[in-house]
């Protein structure tokens, strides 16, 4: 198993934290993991992205050149990363914010109204968790419990009250892609 995942969007959408959360979950499952942020000039213009690698084997490059999956949270990120996805890979598009469709036919695209779904759950800020839930459902890269456990590691204790909402958001995302 080797999953190389790109997560990309605007600064402030929680992209980096979402990547760290997934990396943490992989570590809790005793997998080899690596996380790397974009820190170069591409950050100018407000886009942020990070690469997450989760593998059964030692990880060679922590930098993701050819993602097996991409989570796309804004339009510039779609333009940037659609060409990079590995043939046969998947691309998850937050269609609340992006009206453009994926052009490639050799990758599988999923459109998720992450912001509306998050608002239905009562907090638009969990839109990233909705789309992460979809990723988990499609790739089985880690299980939901590991992500929930990781939240306990990355959140301060006074934020633990947010864990059930985050869990619901993950499950919502999974449900959406499960039901097509």
């Amino acid at each position: 198993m080797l999953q190389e995942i790109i997560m990309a969007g605007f600064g402030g959408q929680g992209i980096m934290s979402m990547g760290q959360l997934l990396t943490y979950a992989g570590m809790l499952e005793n997998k080899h993991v690596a996380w790397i942020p974009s820190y170069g000039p591409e950050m100018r213009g407000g886009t942020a992205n990070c690469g997450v690698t989760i593998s059964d084997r030692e990880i060679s490059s922590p930098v993701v050149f050819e993602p097996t999956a991409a989570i796309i949270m804004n339009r510039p990120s779609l333009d940037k990363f659609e060409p990079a996805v590995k043939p046969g890979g998947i691309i998850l598009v937050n269609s609340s914010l992006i009206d453009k469709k994926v052009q490639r036919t050799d990758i599988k695209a999923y459109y998720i109204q992450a912001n509306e779904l998050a608002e239905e759950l009562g907090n638009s800020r969990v839109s990233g968790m909705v789309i992460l839930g979809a990723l988990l459902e499609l790739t089985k890269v880690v299980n939901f419990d590991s992500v929930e456990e990781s939240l306990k590691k990355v959140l301060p204790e006074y934020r633990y009250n947010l864990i059930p909402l985050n869990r619901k958001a993950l499950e919502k995302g999974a449900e959406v892609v499960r039901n097509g």
Partner: protein
Amino acid sequence: MAKILMKGNEAVGEAAVMAGCRYFFGYPITPQSELPHYMVKRLAEVGGVFLQAESEIGAVNMSFGAAGSGARVMTSSSSPGISLKQEGISYLAGAELPVVIVNIMRGGPGLGNIQPTQSDYFQATKGGGHGDYNLIVLAPASVQEIVDLTIDAFDLADKYRNPVMILGDGVLGQMMEPVEIREVQVNVPEKTWATTGAKGRKPNLINSLYIVAERCEEHNLRLQAKFKQMAKDNIRYEDYLADDAEILLVAYGTSARIAKGAIDRAREQGIKVGLVRPISLWPFPYEHLAEVAQKVKSVLVVEMSAGQMIEDVRLALNGSKPVDFYGRLGGMLPVTSEILREIEKLAKGGRSNG
């Protein structure tokens, strides 16, 4: 012991604290700024001193002062900032002061950019400052190895009374990987030479000035004997699938990781290829490399530079094998598939760069 997820830069800082470092002098520069950032908070927790100097030159000379008084000290920067520190590093070597210096390399020359490179190899291993001196230069390839080598760096610096450099790059500094944070038995040797106050004893002098040529030569000869011993005792490397290799890759740090990925893919095609990864860049594993290379047909050096370590590889092989090169410059990373293509060329009997 439980694992935690840490950035490479933060891991350097935590490892330094584990090794008993209580003094850090630095100046921010991407891609290593998380290290001073981490030290601000962490050193306060353990009663240490963090000081953001007015410049890199200030920071390295503050390290000189703290090391002279017997403390475990670290200073860090990235390429352009390390260039500024070179005068101070030469003084540290001349005055025989143990300081751990971290260089998280970025693009150059000049201001370059903030992306990862390995283009400071010459500067680190061949003496970036003036005079006849050497640093022990350790090149980690993972966040865990950053921790392990940083801890060792403090012991080696004290053992030889010599500066030691940790040489990483932007990828290693910025990436997060699991690390084991362990209890370290801190054994700082007694520093009878340190300037700790001369009450009841003769004053100590920390100095690199030897104005009489005869005395300066004596000092240099003594240093050279020390460097010889340092070179003998501190060779480190990792072999990866090198035993039956017909093609041998040589790479360190981030390049070595990517090279391993390419080797795995080449092995799936039945190409017998392996890797020697120098971990100590000074001293360089000349003899080991020569021995492994005896059995191979060709050698490919992979670096994130225009070809710097390749000169040491050529010295090691002394013309016995063809040595080819694949490198990316200016902050670009070698990609697994590109290295694989070079391996395939060599496997067909061609040359990689010729």
